[in-house]
């Protein structure tokens, strides 16, 4: 009634009258409880006058019997939420609570109510409460003193934070307030199992840290506490202390830290020098960084000493000499401490590096061993990398610039050292030096490039050579002129040189290196314009040659061109340049070769090899996927007429021995048809919204080619190209018609005749195209495929086809080439088809059962592991049966399915331990190495099942695993050693 206004609170109080005044505290309590509950429902409707009376009533009741107090507090909580509370009442309520109630003897919930009342008043009556001065703070200290419940602590900590953040007067009670909160540090709380409140240890830690690190007033009490706890035996206490100290540094200044700096440093040093834990080390370094930053930031009055200087001096004093012992364990901890301090500010960096860099340079010269030099150079590199934080090198301030000559000479000496490890650090140093703007003089820069060229092309070790190429790639965008003017011509020269004195193998590997280097350095558009013509010219040259190694050379050029294409993709202009330059040129060369083949079939032509065409596919694809739709449309208007109508006018070469008609019939056109691979690379990589001219005609030609061609490469390529287009084709009648056409051509081919394989390939690719986009026809086609598993001739190929359906194909029908791929297609395929596979397996003739198992294992192999684990129980018996299948593909794929399951679902697998042990052990003597390895890995993974399940088998497994220890293949022995070692440890002490 009170809620809807028909009753006033006064009516309620009157009605409850006798009850509220009853002499029995229980009855009185119930009365007050009812009133308080009513107030909690309708506090917003109360009048100012009513509130006043209620407050006075409740304050008075605080002196009542302890049974009544909880309800009284509830009422006060309701009233604390009233907006119409008269000025002065909040203070009076709080005073009454502070005076009358011994909060810590209340139950948790009631204590929580008190905190809520305080929180409410602090939210709305801040000015009034501040009028209480430090009494309010003192009152609160008494309220929370001794609090134990984590839920209440979170609220209490928040109140303390507000007291500090909103500048309530702490008066003489700073230390008391610190004591009443810091007594919980470090937090030691483990939430009970099944805790419904969900309070984590981390919540309390962060909440308390926010209190402790909220004011400089606590510093003199807090810092000694943190120093003490850093020495704790508990790693968690150490970490908490370090993190709290780091948090304090955000607000502290020199004044707070001054007195404690020596002990702070010695604690941090001790931890870093002695710790076993990387976590502790990382926290110590973060704290040192924060301290150094804090001191760097402090504003000093004119008469105070700059503590940063003396602080860094003591760090240098304790760490510097360890840098001179590059073999000893303390060298790295010392270097890390110095780097942490130096990274805090430019000032700190100068102070440390002006002492350390000359020392390291000197030590480098003093230590002749490569391994020592490597450590020293790595440290030097660490300091140089820090310089990058502050961008360019300032002339007047930089100690670094004065060291330019010795730093360069040390780095250059590393680059010519025989130790590859040292070379690698030197190469990394080059990248860093080069990225420091203004550090390398033009002459040094030329030396850098020369070193990179030498290492990239002539260094024997491939790791160094690769690193040098990478370094060139990352420096080239900073100094494009130097690289295009110096490196590109030199590499081009090497590439062209024909050297008689060298063995052909050396020459070949130099050519390889040149090609890789050209690709690696193509990381800036101006350089790409230099390297692409060189690569294309080289391609033109090698494809003419007729030696045996030719194919591999052509493929190498293609790989380099591909890498350049990938590096151009992000820049629209570069991408178009590349596309416009490379695609017509490749097509031109290929058409030239193919038309020559039609007229002079006896000349061998490397460009027409399947391997070479396959290497050209990714180039054209990468040059196309990132084109804007407008430019792609421009390009497609040339390429489609080339293939459909022999329209060659856009090609750079324009005289060909005969016309180009890849879709025509004719013996001599075999080579031309193969170029459909290049059409596929281009047209299947186009963005989905690019319209393809004469698409229906093109689809029909591809369909015809895929079913009628005798060359498997061409037929498969045509099928893939058809599938790629169908996948992106908008849904509708046109698509349905073309699909119907495809089915009509496929069916008779599948049924009988010489081209069943081609028909199956087409079926597979079209099915894949439709499965990916959830097209309704995909179910029908998949069923057709499932049916073929029972076919004695096509069954094995159909089973392998399931791998094709599930795997990501590298050239068409993937996301990168804009195909329509639903993310859950594998799960959906699994759900729809695995029951049919299982059913098919049970009903199949013995001679084709393996096909079903193989298909199943392909599907399972590509399923995300979490899905696999949940689906496992229904399939396990079939998988166990598959282990006995004699087909090694089935064995291998089943083993690789089972291995993660052993690790992730040990409970379910335990039920079958007997079968698993027997089958795994028997497969360890398979004739196929890969199966033996997989079986041993499974035997190893078995050890993650519960020990009690395994112990009965321990002796038998150890005995059986002795045999593969003597396997003829090292890779098998390695797995056997690992597996047997684990089995020995089972149930043994100390495991």
């Amino acid at each position, binding site marked *: 009634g009170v809620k809807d206004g028909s009753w006033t609170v006064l009516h309620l109080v009157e009605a409850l009258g006798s009850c509220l005044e009853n002499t029995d505290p229980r009855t009185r309590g119930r009365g007050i409880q009812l009133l308080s509950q009513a107030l909690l429902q309708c506090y917003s409707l109360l009048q100012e006058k009513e509130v006043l009376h209620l407050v006075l009533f409740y304050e008075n009741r605080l002196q009542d019997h302890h049974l009544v107090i909880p309800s009284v507090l509830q009422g006060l909580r309701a009233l604390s939420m009233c907006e119409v509370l008269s000025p002065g009442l909040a203070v009076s309520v709080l005073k009454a609570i502070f005076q009358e109630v011994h909060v810590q003897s209340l139950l948790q919930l009631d204590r929580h109510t008190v905190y809520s009342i305080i929180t409410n008043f602090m939210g709305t009556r801040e000015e009034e409460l501040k009028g209480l001065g430090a009494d309010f703070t003192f009152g609160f200290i008494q309220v929370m003193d001794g609090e134990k419940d984590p839920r209440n602590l979170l609220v209490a900590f928040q109140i303390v934070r507000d007291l500090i953040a909103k500048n309530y007067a702490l008066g003489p009670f700073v230390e008391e307030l610190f004591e009443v909160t810091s007594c919980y540090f470090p937090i030691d709380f483990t939430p009970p199992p099944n805790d419904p409140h969900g309070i984590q240890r981390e919540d309390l830690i962060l909440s308390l840290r926010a209190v402790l690190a909220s004011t400089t007033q606590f510093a003199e009490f807090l810092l000694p506490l943190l120093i003490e706890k850093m020495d704790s035996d508990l790693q968690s206490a150490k970490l908490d202390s370090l993190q709290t100290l780091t948090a304090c540094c955000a607000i502290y200044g020199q004044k707070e830290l001054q007195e404690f700096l020596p002990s702070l440093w010695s604690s941090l040093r001790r931890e870093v020098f*002695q710790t*076993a*834990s*990387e*976590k502790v080390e990382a926290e110590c370094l973060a704290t040192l960084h924060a301290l150094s930053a804090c001191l760097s930031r402090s504003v000093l009055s004119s008469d105070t000493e700059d503590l940063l200087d003396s602080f860094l001096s003591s760090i240098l004093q304790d760490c510097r000499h360890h840098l001179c012992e590059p*073999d*000893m*364990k*303390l060298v790295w901890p010392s270097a890390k401490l110095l780097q942490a301090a130096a990274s805090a500010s430019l000032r700190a960096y100068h102070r440390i590096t002006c002492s350390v860099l000359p020392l390291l340079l000197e030590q480098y010269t003093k230590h002749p061993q490569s*391994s020592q030099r490597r450590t020293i150079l790595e440290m030097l590199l660490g300091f140089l990398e820090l310089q990058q934080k502050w961008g360019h090198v300032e002339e007047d301030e930089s100690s670094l610039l004065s060291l330019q000559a010795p730093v360069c000479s040390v780095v250059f000496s590393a680059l010519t050292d025989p130790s590859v*490890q040292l070379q690698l650090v030197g190469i990394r140093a080059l990248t860093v030096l080069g990225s420091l703007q203004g550090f390398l003089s033009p002459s040094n820069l030329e030396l850098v490039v020369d070193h990179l060229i030498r290492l990239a092309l002539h260094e024997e070790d491939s790791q160094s050579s690769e690193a040098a190429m990478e370094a060139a790639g990352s420096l080239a965008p900073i100094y494009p002129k130097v690289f295009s003017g110096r490196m590109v011509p030199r590499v081009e020269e090497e590439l062209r040189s024909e050297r008689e004195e060298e063995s052909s193998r050396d020459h070949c590997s130099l050519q390889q290196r040149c090609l890789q280097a050209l690709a690696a350095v193509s990381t800036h558009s101006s350089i790409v314009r230099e390297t692409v013509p060189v690569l294309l010219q080289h391609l033109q040259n090698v494809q003419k040659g007729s030696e045996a190694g030719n194919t591999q050379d052509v493929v190498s050029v293609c790989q380099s061109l591909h890498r350049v294409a990938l590096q151009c993709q992000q820049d629209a202009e570069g991408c178009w340049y590349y596309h416009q330059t490379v695609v017509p040129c490749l097509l031109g060369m290929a058409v030239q070769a193919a038309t020559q083949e039609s007229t002079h079939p006896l000349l061998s032509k490397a460009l027409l090899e399947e391997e070479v065409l396959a290497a050209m596919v990714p180039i054209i694809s990468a040059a196309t996927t990132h084109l804007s739709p407008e430019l792609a449309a421009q390009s497609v208007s040339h390429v489609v007429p080339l293939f459909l109508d022999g329209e060659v006018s856009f090609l750079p070469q324009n005289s060909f021995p005969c016309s180009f008609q890849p879709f025509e019939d004719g013996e001599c056109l075999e080579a031309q048809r193969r170029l459909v691979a290049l059409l596929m690379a281009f047209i299947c990589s186009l963005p989905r919204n690019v319209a393809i001219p004469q698409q229906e005609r093109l689809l029909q030609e591809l369909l015809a080619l895929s079913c009628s061609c005798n060359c498997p490469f061409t037929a498969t390529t045509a099928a893939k190209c058809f599938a790629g287009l169908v996948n992106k084709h908008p849904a509708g009648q046109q698509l349905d018609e073309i699909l119907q056409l495809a089915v009509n051509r496929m069916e008779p081919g599948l049924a009988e005749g010489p081209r069943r394989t081609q028909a199956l390939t087409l079926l597979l690719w079209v099915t894949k195209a439709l499965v990916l986009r959830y097209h309704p026809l995909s179910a029908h086609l998949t069923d057709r495929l499932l049916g073929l598993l029972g076919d004695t001739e096509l069954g094995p190929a159909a089973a392998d086809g399931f791998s094709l359906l599930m795997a990501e194909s590298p050239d068409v029908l993937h996301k990168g080439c804009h195909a329509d791929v639903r993310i859950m297609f594998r799960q959906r395929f699994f759900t729809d088809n695995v029951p049919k596979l299982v059913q098919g397996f049970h009903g199949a003739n013995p001679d084709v059962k393996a096909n079903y198992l193989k298909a199943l294992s392909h599907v399972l192999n590509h399923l995300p592991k979490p899905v696999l684990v949940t689906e496992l129980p229904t399939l396990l018996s079939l998988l166990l049966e598959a282990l006995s299948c004699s087909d090694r593909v089935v064995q291998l794929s089943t083993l690789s399915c089972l291995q993660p399951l052993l690790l992730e679902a040990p409970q379910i697998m335990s039920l079958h331990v007997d079968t698993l042990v027997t089958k795994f052990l028997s497969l360890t003597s398979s004739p*196929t*190495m*890969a199966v033996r390895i997989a079986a041993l890995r499974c035997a190893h993974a078995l050890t993650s099942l519960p020990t009690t399940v395994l112990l009965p088998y321990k002796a038998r497994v150890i005995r059986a695993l*002795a045999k593969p*220890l*003597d396997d*003829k*293949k*090292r*890779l098998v*022995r*390695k797995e056997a*050693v*690992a597996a*047997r*070692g*684990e089995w*020995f*440890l089972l149930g*043994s*002490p*100390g*495991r």
Partner: protein
Amino acid sequence: GPGGGAPLENANPLIYRRSGERPVTAREEDDELPDSIDDREIFDISAFLNPAHLIRSINDPEHPLTLEELNVVEQVRVKVNDAESTVAVEFTPTIPHCSMATLIGLSIKVKLIRSLPERFKLDVHITPGTHASEHAVNKQLADKERVAAALENSHLLEVVNQCLSARS
């Protein structure tokens, strides 16, 4: 436990670089061609023990040093003859008075017993001139009965097993 609570034996020991994972060659991937057991293979088996429990001074539970990094086992001190089925491993204690020498040797020996075909005859001993009680330790390691008895001792077995556990 061994070394437990004792003062650090060597707080700043020399450390050596790991030689890195052995690269897999094309030959090794060929199903048909046999690969004989070589020095490197035995070295890899014996060097990657987890000695953290034995050599307490460098006990870093998250990144324990291997015997290789401590230079206790070096590839040049491993000799294998696959045809004659013999393996000899010399190990070098970190300091001449290292109290853990026997246990280190025992761990290496047990690891090899468990990892090698039975046909091999094993010889594990201290690098000559690198330990004060070299002779006594070698004698114990060569004594089959003593090795067997040591492994019956559950306390010793525990330490050895800890050393043999895969590093996490």
